[in-house]
């Protein structure tokens, strides 16, 4: 097939930038990485990009296609080529570019290292053999342990764009990999450290990280798990935590958000007094609903009782979020033809025949149908 690409070239030595277009012949199954290889081999040996495993596990080839971070090795080109669209390939965002599609990952790794990403078993002497841990407890960190450190989440993190010091989705997901590990004994210290100014509560919940992650880590969910664990441990003095807790208080008292009290409950009375001028400007437009009489939901008693019940059941903290994941894991975008296969099932009409051992008489009737 013919594939056309536009690539943002960047020369780190001179600072020159240029958008170059390439048109190549590639095999039908070619990925974006395969196309870059063809360009580099046959058209322009100066093109720079990282690659290694070409099977979505080493995390080398994160880059942007039409502004969205992807793994080049995971991106099949046939559909795009057939549509006639000429995608623009560029280096990932939120990291300095070294050359063409190669970014400087140093700031990325600095943040990973900042979360002290190694198991801390504290003063517990490890057992002679393995730590005995039920699989269900290890499942809590399953998604975070899938991370390949490619940087696709960081590339488009809106908070990091606004605050370059934000620890960011990859580092915080790595942090949860330890906070959620039953063998780790530094949970409180970690949660305190991650609750700093540029930590958990800096996340703006734009969900770009979940959208871009090529491995299903869902870093935003990992950040929520950290928040959940922090509040469970009583590490809740940050304004972000106070903000979150006020919603719980609101729901179990009036059912609806007690919006006007949210600012003082989040920022504290003193700080919110400084905002009085701003508040007055909103008040004039009816944007500050009076707290009294409160807006109370009908049958709010049910919500109150539910709170009591839920408290007793013990699905708290990160586990309360993890319990939502099982059905979510099945939500994947599939190749064309998937629906069809799912509809007929593994042995339905049109499927490959049922297996048989040599000497057995062919496959069974329904399998061969």
């Amino acid at each position, binding site marked *: 097939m013919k594939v056309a690409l536009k690539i943002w070239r960047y020369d780190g*030595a001179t600072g020159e930038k240029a958008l170059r277009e390439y048109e190549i012949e590639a095999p039908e199954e070619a990925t974006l990485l395969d196309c870059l290889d063809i360009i580099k081999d046959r058209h322009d040996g100066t093109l720079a990009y990282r690659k290694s*495993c*070409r099977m979505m596990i080493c995390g*080398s080839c994160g880059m942007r296609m039409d502004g969205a971070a992807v793994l080049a090795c995971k991106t099949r080109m046939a559909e795009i080529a057939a549509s006639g669209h000429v995608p623009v390939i560029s280096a990932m965002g939120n990291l300095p570019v070294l050359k063409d599609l190669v970014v400087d990952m140093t700031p990325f790794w600095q943040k990973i290292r900042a979360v002290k990403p190694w198991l801390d078993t504290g003063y517990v002497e490890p057992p002679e*053999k*393995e*730590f005995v841990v039920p699989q269900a407890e290890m499942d809590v960190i399953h998604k975070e342990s899938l991370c390949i450190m490619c940087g696709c989440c960081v590339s488009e993190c809106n908070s990091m764009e606004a605050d370059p010091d934000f620890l960011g989705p990859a580092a915080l997901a790595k942090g949860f990999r330890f906070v959620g590990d039953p063998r780790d004994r530094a949970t409180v210290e970690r949660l305190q450290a991650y609750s700093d100014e540029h930590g958990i509560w800096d996340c703006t919940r734009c969900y770009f990280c979940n959208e871009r992650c090529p491995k299903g880590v869902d870093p935003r969910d990992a950040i929520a798990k950290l928040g959940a664990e922090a509040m469970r441990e009583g590490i809740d003095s940050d304004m972000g935590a106070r903000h979150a807790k006020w919603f719980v208080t609101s729901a179990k008292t009036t059912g609806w958000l007690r919006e006007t009290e949210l600012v003082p409950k989040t920022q504290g009375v003193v700080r919110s007094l400084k905002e009085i001028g701003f508040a007055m400007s909103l008040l004039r437009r009816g944007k500050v609903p009076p707290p009294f009489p409160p807006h109370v939901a009908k049958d709010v008693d049910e919500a109150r009782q539910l709170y009591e019940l839920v408290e007793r059941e013990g699905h708290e903290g990160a586990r309360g979020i993890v319990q939502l994941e099982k059905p979510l894991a099945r939500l994947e975008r599939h*190749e064309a033809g998937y629906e069809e296969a799912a509809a007929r099932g593994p042995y339905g009409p049109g499927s*490959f025949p049922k297996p048989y051992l040599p000497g057995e008489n062919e496959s069974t009737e329904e399998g061969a149908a």
Partner: protein
Amino acid sequence: MYDVVVVGAGCAGMRAAIEAYDTGASVGVVSKLHPTRSHSGAAEGGINAALGNTAEDSPEKHAFDTVKGSDYLGDQDAIEIFTAEAPGDIYQLEHWGCVFSRNEEGKLAQRPFGAAGSPRTVYSADITGHVLVHVLYEQLMKRMEEGSLVVHEESFAWRLMVEDGRCVGVVCWDLVRGGVKLVTGRSVVLATGGMGRIYRATTNAYSCNGDGMAMALHAGLPLKDMEFMQFHPTTLYPSGVLITEGCRGEGGYLLNRDGERFMARYAPNALELASRDVVSRAETTEIEAGRGINGSVLLDLRHLGAEKILTRLPGSRELAMTFAGVDPIYDPIPVRPGAHYMMGGVATDNWGATELEGLYAAGEVACVSVHGANRLGGNSLMETITFGRRAGRAAAEHALASGRRGEVSDAPARDAERDLAQLLSRTDGERPWKIRDELGASMLENFGVFRYPDRMERQLELIQELRERYRNVVVEDKGEIFNTDLTQALELGYMLDLAWCMVQAGLAREESRGAHSRPADFPERDDERFLKHSISRWGDDGPELSYEEVRMTRWQPEVRTY
């Protein structure tokens, strides 16, 4: 100058670096990739140690399976050390936080693997290499914080520095900034991995070019058993990426185009879980007899059901869906044999020491030899850990005992700069990719699963031709920053030399043993003439071949059936 320089940062390199550091040495790690990008991370199915968590097992059983799997070419003293120390190394990894899968009791789960007498493969779903690489890098980062462990990432090690009969460091090309730099140490550990990229169809990453083997070869060191390249039976069609043996360990079937479980005709007892060499030959025979589909057979997981596939083999499903458009819950996966693992490598003793003082090697680059003529699935990750640790320890002890040395000469840097300048100054000539592609295709054709004398002869001639053409390759990128055009050209030179060693050793081994199969002229194993290791050394006119005895302890060669 570091006490220990570790070249390569996959499982073996990182494990060696950690051990050397913990022994008290200062450590510099040199890697052409960031450590977590290393190809160890692509290992899927698991890591073998006789823990006995699922069924009764012992290091002795593990050793016997390994010896038999090696077709009796493995060095039995090394294998006994390996299987005895493996369990402790696994517990160490677990204590560091490795995210292994668990059994019902909460202990480490173990699954059956090919040619193993007991389920002894510890795993993490089907991303075992990934979790190992990450836990080792975590431990590396912990030691980096303390200061005397430094990682020179994206530095391409290219030549060994040898002074007064001792290895004193490596010559590198700095990929990020450009330029030659020397990283020097009192000991050097090679842990650069394999060389599957010599073949067109391979599970190996683009970075697996045999750098370390070639560096050692050109420093005059012996390479051992280079004719033994393992072909993995289940590499995905068409991309060649690995689909784990764990699929068969969990109960997957191999089918020909008729739906027949053909392995019953080749290995009536072990069926799909026969040794890899056996399964790859069976598949090739089926395909050559016209019972394949598109040059492939089928790996059928459908009967395992969605739940098992989603929990135990999610990575394989993702690979099949992404690269072959097949969801294994509903359809069988097209697979074929592909180059996977070099059993041979830099000859070492049981502590990873090579013939050259101060130089050690561990992992796929090395040949201890634990794997002999055929490696068992799950033994390579274990080898990286156990022998990575041993090499790291030995290298550190050597360095700490060898005392302070004066400055080493920087002449190797001048030489390297001169040679690179010469290569970069060439503006007319052939681009390397054609030579690379021809090497890959011809090695697959002439030195693959089955080997025939005329084809091997032809391949030797072709390699000479390609080496001749290589003398005239042109590097287009003349810049300093991230010049992979340059490093890829250097890698190609390595691969051509190694291919020569491989084919030469293969032609001379007039028998069939493990992964080396000569169905036309020498279909049987010949213990009388060839129960010995081949040794390749670089001479004035290319590699020179000799042989060395296999170290036997308690197992005499027997007929090998599965």
